[in-house]
C-alpha cells in the first residue's frame, strides 16, 4: 500500500463532532454515517445521519442529522412492540439499498411523541429500512395499508 492510500484511509476514519440541539455534543466516526438513498419526506436536503444508541435510552435510538444539528428522530425497532411486524419490502427498494441478504437489513420506525408521552406513536407504514452492511437507508412507504402511520406504542391512550 502506498503512503497516499494509507493517508486516504486515515482521512476516511476521521472523527467528527456535532452539537446536537437535542442531545448535546456528539462525537462520531465518519465510517458510522448512514447515507439516505432517498431523502426522508419533508427533509429533502438531509442525506447523512448517525444512529446513536445507549443502554439508558434502550429500546429507543436517536437518528441525528449530521448536516442539521436541529434534526433528530427517535427510532425504535418495531418488532420490540409489534412482534408480528414483518412487512414485505419491495424488490425495487431492496435493490436501491443494495440489500442482498436478510441479515443486512434492519427496520426502524419513526416515533412521534406528542405532549402526553403515553400517546406516543410509531410510523409502521413508512419504516426506515437500513442496510447495516453498506450504511444505506431509505424511508420505505409500504404498499400494505394494514400498517398504520400512527400506531400507538402504549395501551391506554387518550
Amino acid at each position, binding site marked *: 500500500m502506498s503512503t497516499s492510500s494509507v493517508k486516504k484511509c486515515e482521512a476516511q476514519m476521521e472523527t467528527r463532532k456535532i452539537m446536537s440541539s*437535542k*442531545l448535546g455534543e456528539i462525537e462520531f466516526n465518519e465510517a458510522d454515517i448512514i447515507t439516505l438513498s*432517498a431523502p*426522508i*419526506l*419533508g*427533509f429533502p436536503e438531509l442525506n447523512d445521519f448517525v444512529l446513536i444508541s445507549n443502554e*439508558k*435510552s434502550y429500546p*429507543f435510538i*436517536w437518528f441525528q442529522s449530521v448536516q442539521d444539528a*436541529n*434534526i*433528530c*428522530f*427517535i427510532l425504535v425497532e418495531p418488532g420490540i412492540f409489534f412482534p408480528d411486524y414483518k412487512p414485505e419490502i419491495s424488490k*425495487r427498494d431492496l*435493490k*436501491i439499498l443494495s440489500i442482498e441478504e436478510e441479515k443486512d437489513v434492519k427496520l426502524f420506525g*419513526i*416515533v*412521534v*411523541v406528542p405532549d402526553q*408521552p*403515553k400517546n*406516543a406513536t410509531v*410510523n409502521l*407504514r*413508512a419504516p426506515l429500512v437500513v442496510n447495516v452492511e453498506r450504511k444505506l437507508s431509505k*424511508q420505505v*412507504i409500504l404498499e400494505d*395499508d394494514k400498517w398504520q*402511520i*400512527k400506531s400507538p406504542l*402504549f395501551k391506554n391512550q387518550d
Partner: protein
Amino acid sequence: MLVLSRKINESIIIGDGIEVKIVDVSGRNVKIGIDAPRDVSVHRKEVYEAILNENIEATKKENLVSFIDFFKQHKKD
C-alpha cells in the same frame, strides 16, 4: 396545470421513462396504470402527505429525555 383529455387505454408520457395510462373509468372512479423507472416512487398523494407531516411532527419534540423517563416508568407499572 396541464390538462389533457384521454380515453380508456390511452396514455401520456412524462419525460423519457414515465407512462401514465387510463386503465378503466367507472362512475367517479378512474383506474390509472403507471410505468416508471425504479428510482421514481409513486404514491397516493394523501399517503405521501400524511407521512411527510408525520416526519416533521417527529422532529418537533424538544425534550427527548423526558420520553425515555416516561417509558422507564411505564415499564415498571
